[in-house]
């Protein structure tokens, strides 16, 4: 084997290693689905609470049930498909998956805690609103970690936007407008970043 052959083989290996390391993030479609769902749900919550939409308060249960059902089914359908894409098991994509799974687990446990508090310990329903702040802060953290790992710099903007939204929500945490702010912020902090992610994925795979 000549030196040139060795160098050619090493170049081949290096190209493949780089392709793997720079595999695009594949979670954009799931992010887009959750972003749209959350934006609609939070806006509906605001509309029902403020009676802009003349529906009984009990309808909020159906709104959130639909959110969880559609999101759950959507993730179950899309998840395995995304796992089959090239580079889906790259380090960045695994970090993205783990970080959002941890985030979802955190939100589910906090939601259960608030629910149990309200049902059995006469807790104040307003504590539920705090979840919106925690969600945006957690989302900012998740985006930040994925941005660091994937070197997708634009994700830092999504991370910063999420932190700013969380801080904007603090003074209005006990007001109905909190949900409108959350609904609008979802467009900028989830929907748009997810669209960028999808565009980058399509560009890299073209």
């Amino acid at each position: 084997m000549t030196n040139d052959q060795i160098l050619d083989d090493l170049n081949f290996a290096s190209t493949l290693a780089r392709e793997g390391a720079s595999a695009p993030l594949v979670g954009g479609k799931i992010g887009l689905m959750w972003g749209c769902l959350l934006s609609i749900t939070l806006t509906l919550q605001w509309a029902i609470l403020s009676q802009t939409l003349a529906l009984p308060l009990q309808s909020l249960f159906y709104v959130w049930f639909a959110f969880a059902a559609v999101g759950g089914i959507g993730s179950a359908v899309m998840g395995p498909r995304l796992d089959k894409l090239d580079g889906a098991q790259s380090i960045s994509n695994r970090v993205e998956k783990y970080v959002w799974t941890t985030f979802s687990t955190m939100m589910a446990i906090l939601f259960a805690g608030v629910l149990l508090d309200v049902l059995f310990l006469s807790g104040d329903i307003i504590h539920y609103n705090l979840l919106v702040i925690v969600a945006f802060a957690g989302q900012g953290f998740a985006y930040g970690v994925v941005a660091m790992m994937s070197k997708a710099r634009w994700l830092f903007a999504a991370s910063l936007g999420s932190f700013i939204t969380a801080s904007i929500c603090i003074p209005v945490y006990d007001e109905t407008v909190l949900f409108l702010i959350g609904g609008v912020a979802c467009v900028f902090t989830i929907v748009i970043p997810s669209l960028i992610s999808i565009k980058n994925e399509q560009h890299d795979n073209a």
Partner: protein
Amino acid sequence: MPKDNTPSISLIDDVIHGRLRLGIMAYLSSVSPASFPELIRKTETTNGNLSTHLTKLESAGYVRQEKGYSGKRPQTLVHITEEGRTAWITYLNTMKLLLNA
């Protein structure tokens, strides 16, 4: 007699040092597990060829093939093992020494 400090070519890991196996290990070092079709697309080789080289790497304990199903379709996922990752790093260090000698 002066001592020859040149690294010996015998240090190169023969299991890894083959164009296709090198490519497989390089890709798996950043994407693991990778599916069989994904490895075919990335290395631009044939089913049979990839299968042969994966078997060689698996025999050395460098990769692990996981046969299963994705829905109703059979699916093979290829994982790099801890031993494989160590061998890969050692291989790269050896090549660096040889090429710098």
